């Protein structure tokens, strides 16, 4: 998560980053977000009823989904090395 937020800050204004947290308590999620999402480039929300995870057909985490022009163009499971993550951002705005 810190790496994602770091790269998101590099592409601020070009890519929107929305972090959707799996059902948990708001307090715990907010606490974790304050520790990981420090740049302000990543906005987040709590998926209280898992409906957003279900809509994106995500059954576990972490998962990244890139959407361009309303279409899913890239999806990965687990964490990506910083270089690959940066490349994914670059491909999305190309």
């Amino acid at each position, binding site marked *: 998560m810190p790496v994602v937020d770091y790269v998101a800050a590099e592409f601020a204004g070009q890519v*929107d*980053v929305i972090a*959707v947290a799996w059902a948990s308590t708001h307090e715990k999620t907010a606490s974790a*977000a304050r520790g990981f999402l420090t740049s302000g480039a990543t906005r987040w929300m709590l998926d209280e009823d898992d409906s957003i995870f279900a809509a*994106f057909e995500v059954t576990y985490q972490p998962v990244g989904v890139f959407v361009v*022009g309303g279409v899913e*163009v890239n999806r990965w499971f687990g964490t990506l090395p910083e270089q690959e993550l940066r490349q994914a951002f670059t491909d999305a705005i190309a």
Partner: protein
Amino acid sequence: MAYGCAGTMLIIRGVKGRNRVVGAVLATAAALGACGGGSSEQVASEPAEPATTSAVATSEAVVTTTAATVASGSTVAEDPPAGTTATVAPEEPVETPTTSAVAETTAATEPAAAPETTAATEPAPLPEGPAVPALTLELEDGTTFVTTEATRPVLYLFWAEW
């Protein structure tokens, strides 16, 4: 057309004196009569000069047929007028192909330009893949984010606090 008018004059030797001048006048009249079908002033005046000059310069009398004779006789059809018609006629076909050529050129140019315009205005092809679910996300910062109304690429990062 000038050749056709000159060709309508018939010269008859053997007439002298005053009749020579009258003949020249008649020759002019005949020429004008033969050119009656034409609408140009040039056509009517050109044949008159050579007819008069030849009548005065020569010592022999010049008599022409009447305008009626010239108009109805076969001379008009057989002599220069026929050739004139043949000479003038090709001018029109020459113009017609020119016009056609212009039209073809225009026609060939327009279709070629159209694809360029179309290609220039065509939007970039949309990326392929599943459509994003239509959702309205209530973000922690108090804003909402509609997934289908995003104006730039979006990374949705699914995670958990544990």
